[in-house]
């Protein structure tokens, strides 16, 4: 549905997006993750034909964003980050205006407005001027506008920014519902958000694509080299020495904590059983044994801190 090849965008000599390549399949919800200023909005603006790329190409729904811009715009529903709306217009007026812009005739327009208003819970505010609406409602008006022409592809730039927790949850479940009929690409700088809604995650940092895959795949990438933490009641040096003997242990770090010895093992395989056996043989009581499973959050933080994976 979306194909991006070697896309770059320079503002002057600064690269906002630097040679990124990715694809999004039909029916997927893809999260576009990166810290602020990573180049998410720039990429999205290129995909929605707001600005041209400096290098590379992109196609959306089979149309090139540069040469078939009108076809792309017809097949994309776009919610810009700032949710720009006309404050003096009423919600119904605005949606009618957007429908006309999309070339819909009166009947198509009215039925589409009914559909999106129901979908985005706008019934109560349909006659109110947009300028009087709260941020949450404005976001929904923007989303309703993006859905008006029933687009194949939905591109949402930070759809939940500035919403309260309840609205965030509502928006998330709405996006998940929408995935049944649309291919969704959403951007965010908040990881749990993307983790909760998306089947695939694309992480970019400083304009470059640093990782992509399903949340599980990305998690697997980080779990390589899992560490195991054990606390045994034994002398620090002895415990440390015994642990080093275990097969698969590559590194041991031991420290004394109020009479107990805490060891952190870097292992290639699961050695929990072996640790238990050692504790049995040496009669060192064992009070803690846990794996330190890396979260996507760690992964993301690592990337943002500058470590390439």
């Amino acid at each position: 549905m979306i194909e991006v090849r070697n896309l770059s965008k320079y503002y002057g000599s600064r690269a906002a997006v630097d040679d990124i390549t990715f694809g999004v399949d039909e029916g997927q919800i893809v999260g576009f993750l990166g810290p602020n200023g990573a180049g998410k909005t720039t990429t999205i603006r290129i995909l929605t034909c707001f600005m041209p790329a400096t290098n590379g190409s992109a196609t959306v729904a089979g149309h090139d964003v540069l040469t078939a811009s009108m076809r792309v715009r017809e097949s994309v529903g776009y919610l810009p980050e700032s949710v720009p709306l006309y404050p003096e217009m009423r919600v119904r007026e605005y949606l009618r205006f957007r429908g006309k812009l999309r070339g819909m005739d009166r009947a198509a327009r009215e039925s589409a407005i009914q559909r999106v208003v129901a979908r985005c819970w706008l019934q109560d505010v349909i006659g109110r001027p947009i300028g009087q609406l709260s941020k949450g409602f404005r976001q929904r008006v923007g989303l309703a506008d993006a859905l008006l022409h029933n687009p194949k592809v939905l591109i949402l730039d930070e759809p939940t920014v500035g919403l309260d927790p309840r609205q965030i949850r509502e928006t998330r479940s709405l996006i998940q519902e929408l995935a049944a009929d649309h291919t969704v690409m959403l951007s965010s700088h908040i990881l749990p958000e993307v983790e909760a809604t998306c089947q695939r995650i694309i992480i970019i940092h400083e304009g470059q694509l640093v990782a992509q895959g399903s949340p599980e795949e990305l998690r697997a990438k980080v779990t390589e080299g899992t560490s195991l933490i054990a606390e045994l009641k034994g002398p620090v040096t002895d415990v440390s020495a015994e642990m080093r003997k275990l097969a698969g242990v590559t590194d041991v770090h031991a420290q004394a904590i109020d009479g107990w010895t805490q060891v952190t093992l870097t292992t290639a395989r699961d050695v929990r059983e072996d640790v238990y056996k050692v504790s049995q043989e040496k009669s060192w009581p064992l009070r803690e044994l846990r794996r330190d499973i890396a979260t996507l959050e760690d992964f993301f933080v690592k990337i943002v801190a500058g470590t390439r994976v």
Partner: protein
Amino acid sequence: MRNTMAIMQRELLALFCSPIGYIVIAGFLLINGVIVLWTGVFSPGKAATLRDVFFWMPWVLTVIVPAISMRMISEEYRSGTIESLMTAPLSDFQMVLGKYLAGVIFFAIMLGATLVYLVLMAAYGNPDLGAAFALYLGLFLIGLAFTAYGVFASSLTSNQVVAWILGWVPLLLFACVSYFVVGQVEGWLRALFQQVNVIGRFEAFSRGLVRIDGVVFFIATAALFVFLTVKVVESRRWR
């Protein structure tokens, strides 16, 4: 076509839903009223013509017309709504044209309000309707050209006030000051000022003379600035 109309309707709605539209119309009619009193065209014994009143009109319009168009594109940039317009399936030309047409319609409505003087004149005197038609046609043509220039000025900045000044000052300098300057200079400067001399061209209309070079000048100017506006809007994408 439908999307051009949509832009036009929205633009008219914005003008009539905000104070700016009414302020502009009220200001225009107030200045007009003052000029009518000042020139004393309704005094007994005067010829039944609005020519003296409308002689001043191009000056007034240099201020008024950019005020109509000042927010048309600059406000889209400021509020970011340009992003949803430029990602909707309409060309930059359709967008600019819709806005321009809205400005022209608004101008025509505003100008139409001054017909009341003509009606009064017809009630108490016997004005030459042919000459009055030429006068209004001349003003409408000035409106076409000035509005296009105003929309162009609006596309250059994201600040309405700057757009207004960018619209007003060059119009005043070129279109009106050239009327006085044209006799003072020689050579190519004279030729230039003769071309852009809006008041000079309008004088022919106010004498009841519809000159084809005048009609072509105003329409061509309008077309040029609509074209330039489209180019400015397009070029903003590349920055």
